[in-house]
């Protein structure tokens, strides 16, 4: 609890990975789906992306890479991949099961 500027914004600026701006969402998925500790989750994602761990929070690396992979960015182009389409690609990229993706895929299959 606390006001949005004081709390989450400050945490994100001081110590966050940057979400879909860089690779924060990807590392978060590995903590959530494989219970990976931070260092292991970063190493896993870096390996899948074929980048260095330090690149995971580098805008100069991650913005074009996310566009190339079609996994969504904070500055989406009109009609570009975002939302469940981007998440579906993230699931394949990381080799994980994402419940919302699994559900929509099962609906497409029927």
């Amino acid at each position, binding site marked *: 609890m606390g006001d949005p500027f004081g709390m989450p914004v400050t945490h994100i600026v001081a110590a966050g990975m940057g979400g879909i701006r860089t690779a924060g969402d990807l590392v978060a998925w590995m903590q959530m789906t494989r219970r990976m500790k931070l260092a292991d989750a970063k190493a896993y994602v870096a390996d899948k992306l074929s980048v260095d761990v330090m690149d995971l929070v580098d805008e100069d690396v991650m913005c074009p890479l996310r566009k190339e992979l079609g996994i969504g960015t904070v500055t989406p182009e009109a009609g570009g991949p975002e939302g469940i389409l981007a998440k579906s690609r993230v699931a394949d990229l990381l080799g994980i099961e994402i419940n*919302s993706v699994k559900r929509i895929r099962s609906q497409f299959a029927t």
Partner: protein
Amino acid sequence: MSDYIFTRMGDGERIQMSPSEIRDEMQKGMERASELARIPGLSSDEIELLLEIVTEPGRVVSVPHGHELIVTDDGMAECFTGSEADGCSGISMGRHAAVLAYERALAADTSSIGHSDYSFKPVKAVLEVELQTYHQLSQLTTAPLFYGSQPNMGQYFQPDGPFPNPVDLMPSGKIKAAQAAQEAAAAQLCEDMVFIGRELNAMGCEGFNFDTAGSTGDAEFYATLKAARQLKEYDPNMAIIIGMASEFVLGMHGEIAFEGHQLAGLFPHDQVKLAESVGADIFGPAINVDTSKSFPWNLAKALTMVKETVARAGIPVHPNVGMGVCGIPMLLQVPIDCVSRAAKALALIGKADGL
């Protein structure tokens, strides 16, 4: 280093201390944590690093490159829309817009939604609305989306709920009746949490956050552990966070045990092992702030407990670092000098996996 450093009290008041006074406060805060939780303290190198962080001249500080961590939350996106009571901004905007703004404009690693009361009991009555909102947002978001709620067992007691209120029974010496009421409420709470969790899971829920667990004491923590286990057995792929209400589990019941472990009085380094055993994917310790002590005292105390929790955990640990916990002063508009220093210290000294 300046002779006097601006820092704060646990209630947010700005004060000045010399570096040696700050070091002394940290030593005392660390010793208090060690004494309470019976755990090792910080090393002298860690105390010196903490001193560097607290005395850094900038108003806002940050981690060095490569030390970033994951930021999860307890419904922060919807705090754009609420009111003062929850530290919210009162902006007239919908839930969908709030969550997407949080994901894309603020670059949050994960986002979440929750009922405005942020408790399971009221969610049950409007579950269809919550399912609809969650489902739609899960199609729109790219980062992980949690559904968060507090077990908040207090809402199950009279006059708000069906069960006799233990706070009324205990002063009359009716201890067994008070314990029975808590056990009955815990059973109902567990049933409700599992029901809501399964319905959300069927709607594609990516992550479920049991937030502020144990706020009504050990019986509530018991219900949370049981519910988490049942949900993970039902679908291991729905991620679960168990975040705590305070640094030790209050013994409102006093004797309730989970698989042989008495819950009353457990500190975070033991809480995490139980959370891990029931299948939780992320654990959030909450270390109390003493408003009469300084920020350096409170932060050192929090770091001592978090460091030991992380060391013993086999799952990621995301300390709760909001108002009044883990060193953050008890002030609704939380001072960013303290928040950024707590974040940096928890990453570098606490070795946290997230916040």
